[in-house]
């Protein structure tokens, strides 16, 4: 049962976020019936599941909400701000209820009561929280009972108890849909000594008058479809429970031995109404999954742990395959080479497929951002319009997980410090409503995410001044525009007090940068005073694989990420040693270079020619001198562990086909490091 409860919680969490998402969208598009349907459906599944797994409080509470939204669905109520506010609050409360189940903390209890009362008020009922079931939705003054009466035949398989299903719970749930008469048939129960207690011998006929549609009834049985015969038929378009002669006959049948069947009941009703045109002949469709579930059939839910495990295995496979290929080549066995080639092909496909599975669209984060924008702009009395583009851009799920918090922080900053109040904005000649644009797109081997606001922007001069005050730079330092904005990520900058007065930014930006660094992400900021700020986050597509260039330096092999590589040149050894200014002309362009043997304190190469790999670094190119380039290589990135955490120049290691380890360079960090060493060296010379 534990396992089922877990499953329910997982599903309920999904339902809740789906609900939240629909509500937020409704805010912009209050007329959309599709969205109302979505809200309603999510609530409905929540309620059903809740009561089934013993989340009574959650189920009852959702029941009231559902009633409220049913009124909207039926057009008795209009979607408005107040209603959305209260529902969103209710959604938050549902999250708590899901956590606390039925043992509520005193705080939650109070919220629970308050919210229930508020929801009831919307329903036009001043009833207290404990009104319970049987709430009739008559707020619109529409006094007519628009319930329909259904006939339900429920005959569970004998072994239905085996997987823990209790048919009585299902009947209970039916009962909660409306007015209900449940007739059990016991005649199949054998004499005592023949009876097996683990078997179910009883079956039922149910007459249900409800406002729900047929799908709602099918929903009740959704988990037992396979293990029971279920027939649902519309018996009447009216509520037959209002018909006293029907009730009388029903009572008679209830004391009867054998089931009457749908035909029997229909005859009963026909005789009752004496109407010839039983126009609404019930459709004889066999019971089927409800519409709301159909959309999910094409995808399945997998634990993220399993995906992680699969990714690890695939990585191992890629490594092993490299070994096989190498061995086949060495043995010069053409048959083995053929097999190795095939394995390589398959491995590549499998790898692409596996990585594809682990990718998640950026969209999954959006609800949280929308909610943040909505709540924070509300509490700061600012008007903010949040739009998102490229939300189907996909990223490794581990990256997405670690990305949400930094992005939340960035957006919070946008609203808090970027966007001005409506008054300030109209004074500056801007529309009152501020705009935050979230944009995700692919760029080479990485994904860029841009958050742009059209707020007051940041004045680079002010950053500069503050940085000088904080002793981060000397007053004479000449910095590029980018370098100045980079200062906002400096830990010394962001801990400064009252930073909001200066730039409006910088609070915690160093944390953002550090968190993004953990997933090999980079962040840049650019701003135009008065017109707005753009923050760009660059992320690797996946954490675990790098397309790289395998190079040899002395006895070790290194991988340079292909995304950074621009071009490879052969050079004479004499050109790249004992250079005073470390500049070389490549393609007619003066290019700074670093001799990696020299930088790594390794003995000089004895070869006559070496190779220079030109990599992109910021806006320029930098050459890295290596012994020779071996070729392209797919590196499965492995962490080097805690012991080498301080080692920034190397982003990880990878295992080569021959079982040895190659190091994967982080060219940006490496060049950064080398240049700062050089500055040190130069300053010593001075």
């Amino acid at each position, binding site marked *: 049962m534990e396992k089922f409860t877990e499953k329910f919680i997982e599903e309920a969490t999904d339902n809740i976020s789906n609900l939240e998402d629909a509500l937020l969208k409704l805010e912009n598009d209050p007329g959309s019936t599709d969205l109302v349907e979505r809200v309603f459906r999510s609530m409905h599944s929540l309620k059903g599941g809740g009561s089934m797994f013993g989340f009574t409080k959650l189920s009852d509470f959702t029941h009231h909400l559902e009633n409220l939204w049913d009124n909207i669905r039926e057009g008795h109520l209009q979607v408005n701000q107040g209603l959305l506010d209260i529902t969103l609050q209710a959604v938050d409360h549902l999250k708590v209820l899901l956590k606390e189940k039925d043992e509520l903390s005193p705080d939650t209890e109070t919220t629970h009561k308050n919210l229930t009362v508020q929801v009831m008020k919307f329903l036009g009922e001043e009833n207290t929280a404990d009104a319970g079931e049987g709430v009739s939705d008559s707020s619109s003054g529409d006094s007519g009972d628009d319930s329909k009466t259904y006939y339900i035949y429920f005959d569970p398989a004998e072994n239905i108890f085996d997987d823990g299903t209790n048919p009585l719970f299902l009947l209970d749930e039916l009962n909660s849909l409306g007015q209900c008469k449940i007739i059990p048939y016991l005649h199949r129960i054998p004499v005592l000594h023949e009876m097996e207690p683990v078997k179910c011998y009883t079956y039922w006929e149910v007459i249900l008058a409800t406002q729900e549609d047929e799908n709602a009834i099918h929903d009740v049985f959704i988990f037992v479809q396979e293990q029971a015969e279920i027939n649902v038929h519309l018996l009447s378009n009216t509520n037959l429970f209002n018909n006293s002669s029907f009730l009388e006959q029903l009572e008679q049948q209830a004391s009867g031995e054998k089931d009457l069947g749908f035909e029997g009941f229909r005859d009963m009703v026909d005789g009752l109404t004496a109407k010839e045109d039983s126009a609404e002949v019930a459709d004889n469709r066999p019971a089927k999954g409800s519409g709301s579930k159909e959309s999910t059939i094409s995808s399945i839910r997998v634990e993220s742990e399993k995906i992680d495990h699969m990714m690890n295995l695939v990585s*191992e496979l890629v*490594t092993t395959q490299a070994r096989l290929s190498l061995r086949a080549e060495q043995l010069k066995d053409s048959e083995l080479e053929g097999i190795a080639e095939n394995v390589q092909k398959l491995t590549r496909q499998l790898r692409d497929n596996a990585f594809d599975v682990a990718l998640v669209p950026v969209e999954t984060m959006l609800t949280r951002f929308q909610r943040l924008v909505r709540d924070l702009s509300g509490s700061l009395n600012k008007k903010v319009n949040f739009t998102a583009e490229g939300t189907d851009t996909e990223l490794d799920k581990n990256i997405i997980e670690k990305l949400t918090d930094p992005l939340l922080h960035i957006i919070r900053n946008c609203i808090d410090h970027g966007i001005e109040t409506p008054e300030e904005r109209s004074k500056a000649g801007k529309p009152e409503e501020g705009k935050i644009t979230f944009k995700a797109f692919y760029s080479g081997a990485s994904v860029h995410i841009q958050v742009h606001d059209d707020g007051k922007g940041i004045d680079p001069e002010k950053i500069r001044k503050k940085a000088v005050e904080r002793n981060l730079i000397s007053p004479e330092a000449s910095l590029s525009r980018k370098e100045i904005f980079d200062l906002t990520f400096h830990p010394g900058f962001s801990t400064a007090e009252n930073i909001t007065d200066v730039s409006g930014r910088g609070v915690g930006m160093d944390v953002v940068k550090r968190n993004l660094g953990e997933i090999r992400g980079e962040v840049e900021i650019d701003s135009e005073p008065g017109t707005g700020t753009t923050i760009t986050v660059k992320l690797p597509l996946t954490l675990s694989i790098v397309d790289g260039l395998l190079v040899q330096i002395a*006895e*070790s*092999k290194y991988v340079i990420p292909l995304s950074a590589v621009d071009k490879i040149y052969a050079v004479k050894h004499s050109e790249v040693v004992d250079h005073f200014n470390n500049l070389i002309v490549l393609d007619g362009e003066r290019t700074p270079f670093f001799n990696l043997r020299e*930088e*790594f*304190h*390794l003995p000089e190469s004895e070869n006559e020619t070496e190779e220079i790999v030109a990599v992109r670094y910021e806006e320029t190119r930098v050459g890295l001198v290596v012994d020779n380039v071996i070729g392209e290589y797919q590196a499965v990135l*492995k*962490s*080097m*562990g*805690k*012991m*080498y955490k301080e*080692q920034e*120049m*190397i982003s*990880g*290691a990878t*295992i080569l086909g021959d*079982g*040895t*380890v*190659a*190091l994967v360079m982080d060219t940006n960090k490496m060049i950064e490091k080398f240049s700062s060493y050089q500055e040190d060296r130069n300053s010593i010379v001075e």
Partner: protein
Amino acid sequence: MNKEELEQITSYLTFKLGEEEFAAHVSRVLSIMEMTKITQIPKTPGYMKGVINLRGQVLPVIDTRLKFGMSAAEYTANTCIVVMEVEVGGENVQVGTIVDSVQEVLEIEKDQIQPPPTIGNRIKSEFIYGMAKIEDKFIMILDMDKVFSAEEIEDVQASTERGRQQQPADESPQEAVNEKHEAE
């Protein structure tokens, strides 16, 4: 086996660095492997030899001699990498330690273990859990968690530097212990 049960075990793996014999509790030892090609990591302290491939995982390797401030030695056929799992900052970390040779697995009862000498010891006394006299040799039992705790990595060099200055290098720990006993 849980941690407590593991600690009940009285088995220790002994290994040699130079002429001195050390012991590590078996609960920390995962495997012993032959010396293999180590990939060096540029710009790291000398005792951090680099990384190797341990069944698909990248394992950092440390030269124990250098770490304890002894002189570097040529690797021989006896040189081994002892793969250990140590706790660093509350996390289990696997690390390979290069030792001159692995000796044996010894049973050392708790009451055989004496407190480590506080003075005249070449290695930082914090690294040493205790001393045991087995037959006529002294074995230093190491506290592997402390040896590899991240903060110690920096300290160890400084302290061994000092240690070497304070006492002649040829003085063996055995003598140091004897001295201590005489003092008592």
